[in-house]
């Protein structure tokens, strides 16, 4: 009987431990970000699109548009906050010089819609596989890039992520996101990559607004224009450049 009780105890605590709490602030570890394979399995059209990529005119973040999913999760430049509530996992990204982005992952047993409305952060559900959360995401806006060097995707993109926490000696709690990108229209084979995040409960979460830099830029232009106007009204038109100062 004691053995039975211990067995119940072990099973119960195993069940409790089987659904880890991802809540908290996590810092991506750029050193461990898995590089993309040198030969990406792209269809000819996707390859041509990637080769023609011009960040100045075709990168959404150059225009204060979102990173979008999965680029927000793959970027390694700023802390992310994860909030786990009943039936939900919410990931909040605050990349420097960009706007806040929020991914909502539903853990309430709903299924993915057959025809999801395209959105920049996608439609996500999660299910547990032991201590691993398996997140499936579809319906991602095709304007969103997968990476900053222009890796594209089609409306057929389906992302499968396996999230788990490992306790690593020296590093403490580490969140591992193993991501597989399936896209029958843009990729000839699934693309797999991994990101590692270290537990950083005291990392500061800074507010960031992309338009702020444009706004400051605008203020400076106004200031410069005003300065130029003031100068042209006080300096005679005939005066050579630089005189009168």
């Amino acid at each position, binding site marked *: 009987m004691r053995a039975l009780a211990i067995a119940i105890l072990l099973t119960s605590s195993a069940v409790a431990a089987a659904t880890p*709490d991802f809540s908290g602030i996590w810092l991506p570890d750029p050193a461990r970000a898995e590089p993309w394979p040198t030969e990406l399995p792209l269809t000819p059209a996707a390859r041509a699109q990637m080769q023609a990529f011009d960040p100045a005119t075709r990168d959404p973040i150059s225009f204060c548009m979102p990173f979008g999913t999965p680029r927000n999760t793959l970027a390694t430049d700023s802390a992310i906050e994860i909030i786990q509530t009943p039936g939900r996992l919410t990931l909040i990204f605050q990349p420097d010089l960009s706007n806040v982005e929020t991914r909502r992952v539903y853990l309430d047993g709903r299924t993915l819609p057959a025809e999801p409305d395209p959105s920049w952060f996608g439609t996500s559900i999660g299910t547990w596989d032991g201590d691993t959360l398996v997140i499936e995401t579809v319906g991602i806006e095709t304007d969103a890039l997968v990476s900053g060097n222009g890796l594209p995707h089609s409306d057929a993109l389906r992302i499968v992520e396996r999230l788990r926490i490992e306790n690593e000696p020296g590093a403490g709690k580490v969140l591992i996101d193993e991501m597989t990108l399936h896209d029958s229209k843009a990729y000839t084979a699934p693309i797999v990559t991994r990101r590692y995040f270290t537990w950083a409960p005291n990392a500061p979460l800074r507010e960031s607004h992309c338009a702020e830099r444009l706004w400051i830029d605008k203020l400076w232009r106004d200031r410069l224009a005003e300065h130029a106007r003031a100068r042209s009204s006080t300096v005679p038109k005939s005066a050579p450049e630089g005189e009168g100062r």
Partner: protein
Amino acid sequence: MNANTGARLAIIAVALALTSNARAEGVPPMPRDARTLAAAGVSTGKTSTSAATAQASRPDFSGVWLPDGRKNAGQWPKQPPFTPAMKASRAAYAAKYLPQDKEVDDENTSCIPYGMLTTMLGIAQYPFEILSTPTQLTLLTEIFGSVRRIYLDGRRPPPELLPSRMGFSTGHWEGATLVVETTHLTPENEGSARPGSAAQRIVERFSVVPDAQYGKELVDEITVHDPTVYTQPITVTMRYKWAPDVQVGEYLCQQDIWDQNKEGHPSEIPWRK
């Protein structure tokens, strides 16, 4: 060992498992303020002064809420009690800069998000979602896609914290009311509809009340303290409708610039020319 002992052990095992489960979900021990209230003999529930009742009476703020435009309209005073100095600088500002070209001169039109006060005034009737954990309330707004965090874990602002549009908010419970204090707000100058200095302090009292039409409403009584701007605090009461069927959408403020660029012509936004 007989069957009864075994059953008791199993019950203990289940109880232990439940305890460890509660711990895994981050349920904290009895909160400090509830203990304090109970110790002070303050009634926190209708029939009991126990801390457990106080905790049980706390409303659940989680879910999606929509500003109740009908009830919120006209709450903010048309003639706020500006200090004489603020009146003078507003007049000087108006003489120099008004009328404003909204398309060029308005920072929100230029995709800079609302601050905490304007967000909570719900002037633009966009929904927001609240995520609730024992240590933090998180507001996810549709407008500007902003995030506001209210810390319930007793922390203080870190030293040398920079101001931000959402500021730094901490909350504590007074019975079934969550009292939230916000500081470190980005100052708004005399040209703003609601100027705010670095000393601005906003106190909110959040509660949930039953509502015949929507099931329940979230009530936020907001008091703005800013002696360099107002001669006396301003208090308004905002209401938000329970909206379980509403989804908070993606807010893409710069969509037009992106679309224009995709169509091959540069932005028509005047200050980007």
